[in-house]
């Protein structure tokens, strides 16, 4: 059981407002991802929930109890650190068992729990090794194993994959998602990588400068970003923002259109443009173009398109995929 609720949670360091005041509901069993550019306060928010930092003001409710003034250990949460934070002087077994020992569990219980965690994480053969003798992915699994055995109300992940190489990162992503499906425990996951957020989350919390910009399911954020920041942050490549005539036509300050929602034609279309760079990936082609009167844009075309530098093309945004923003960057309803 792990429903977490933040009420007006505030954090200041000296005179600096790191978190000006956050309200958030996390349901039991949900996989929530905090995403945002670095320095946006997402890690701080996680550490506030963990109890590694004090809140300056506000409440943190875990299953209805305010734990804002409780020691980390009393909150019943587990955390996986970016650096893994394994105990270098202990074997894998002891690393995983440490929390149980601290909780005063009996030897038998420890043995059983460690073994079952090891099995889930494919670590059974490595239990007697030291962390220094493991690969990055194995270390990550040990860190997760350490979190699992304590049956926490929720798992907290602090950018757990950023120290892994690209291929391993995809693997671990799947493993963690699989783990969530198996354990059905609440997970709070911090990352700056929107791909991880999109692929893993039940619910994404987009943060900027300590403020929650938007909360929602991945596809909701993709389809209806609440503002220009979310629109630009979610989705890859980034959304194109166009002002000028086109915006006026849609009676707003600026419009946004995702690269995948623009039709490309060599003959005719709404916006004439010149190709600068074409990235051919086989299944799709990214065209970085200079649109006449609008500046640089990125466009995604399916499959292989025979275009190259200096080619003249025409772009046509899909009308029902156009996002409209006012002068403050807030999204306006579809026109």
């Amino acid at each position, binding site marked *: 059981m792990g429903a977490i609720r933040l009420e007006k949670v505030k954090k200041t360091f000296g005179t600096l407002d790191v978190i000006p005041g956050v309200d958030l509901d996390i349901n039991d069993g949900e996989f929530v991802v905090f995403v945002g550019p670095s320095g946006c306060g997402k890690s701080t928010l996680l550490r506030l929930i963990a*109890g*590694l*930092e*004090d809140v300056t003001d506000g409440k943190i409710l875990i299953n209805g109890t305010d734990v804002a003034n409780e*020691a980390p250990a009393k909150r019943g949460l587990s955390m996986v650190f970016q650096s893994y934070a394994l105990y270098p002087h202990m074997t894998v077994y002891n690393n995983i068992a440490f929390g149980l020992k601290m909780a005063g569990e009996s030897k038998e219980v420890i043995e059983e729990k460690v073994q079952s965690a090891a099995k889930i994480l494919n670590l059974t053969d490595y239990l007697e090794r030291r962390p220094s003798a493991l690969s990055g992915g194995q270390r990550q699994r040990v860190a997760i194993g350490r979190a699992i055995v304590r049956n926490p109300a929720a798992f907290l992940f602090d950018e757990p994959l950023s120290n892994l190489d690209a291929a391993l990162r995809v693997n671990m992503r799947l493993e963690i998602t699989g783990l969530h499906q198996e354990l059905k425990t609440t997970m709070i996951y911090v990352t700056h990588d929107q791909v991880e957020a999109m692929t893993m989350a039940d619910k994404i919390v987009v943060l900027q400068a300590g403020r929650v910009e938007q909360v929602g399911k991945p596809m909701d954020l993709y389809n209806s970003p609440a503002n220009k920041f979310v629109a630009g942050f979610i989705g890859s490549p980034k959304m194109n923002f166009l002002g000028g005539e086109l915006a006026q036509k849609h009676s707003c300050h600026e419009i946004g259109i995702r690269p995948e929602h623009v039709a490309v034609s060599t003959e005719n279309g709404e916006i004439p443009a010149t190709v600068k760079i074409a990235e051919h990936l086989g299944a799709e082609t990214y065209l970085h173009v200079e649109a006449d009167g609008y500046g640089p844009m990125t466009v995604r075309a399916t499959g292989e398109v025979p275009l190259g530098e200096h080619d003249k093309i025409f772009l046509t945004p899909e009308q029902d995929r156009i996002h409209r923003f006012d002068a403050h960057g807030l999204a306006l309803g579809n026109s």
Partner: protein
Amino acid sequence: MSTRASTLTGRIMSAPSIIVLFLWMAVPLGMTIYFSFLRYNLLSPGMEEWIGTLNYEFFLTDPAFFASLANTLLLVGSVLVITVVGGILLGLMLDQPIFGRGILRLLVIAPFFIMPTVNALVWKNLLMDPVSGMFAWIASLFGLPAIDWFTNAPLTSIIIMVSWQWLPFAVLILLTALQSLDRDQKEAAQMDGAGPISIFFYITLPHLSRAITVVVLIETIFLLTVFAEIFVTTGGGPGLATTNIAFLVYTQALLQFDVGGASAGGIVAVILANIVAIFLIRLIGKNLDN
């Protein structure tokens, strides 16, 4: 970056050390300050009387004070230069492949473990003695007259002994620092066409700067209060040639038993030490923070 609870525990846990050190410093220091305003000779107890700043006047106008101040600075400065330069050279030497390097290293660091008193006794009697000492014999092999170390070069003799004691310390730290130097950096510099000397000055020396800072800091702390070597060999002489501040205070306290004068001297020494400390702190603050 921590919680109120842990900040509080932090305060509580650092408190014992700070409090005991504070008491250890403040209580005797307070008494010393009080004594420094008294005419207080240990040999005339019960005759103490308040004499205001007379002790300070006498200490500060004592020609011995300036001589000893100069000697202190000269001693600290020379030993620092010798040990840092020697430490770098020996460090570079021991960083090369050498037959039996491990054992050689043991030989080089051995002087650091020697009691200062023993150090002084051995150098004074077995080595520097102008009649039967080793150096006199070596000089005679070359047909040279023996150097009368403690008469003709007293401060130099002290500097040699103290440097011998502290050189290994510098070698230990600088050698470790040298070994941690990234080989890539040197190779990149070689690719850029740098010779061994430019590599030393542009790569190795900057890399050593933090280690050198530490050597300077720690050695200064100990060198400011060098005492045993002087006490055993020259007794501060001839004249005032080897009297440093610590020894001058000692002569007041334990030869003249002038507690008042020694206290004033002690306070002056504390003030001087703090000036040096502030200077060092600037240096260290820059170098150790990053």
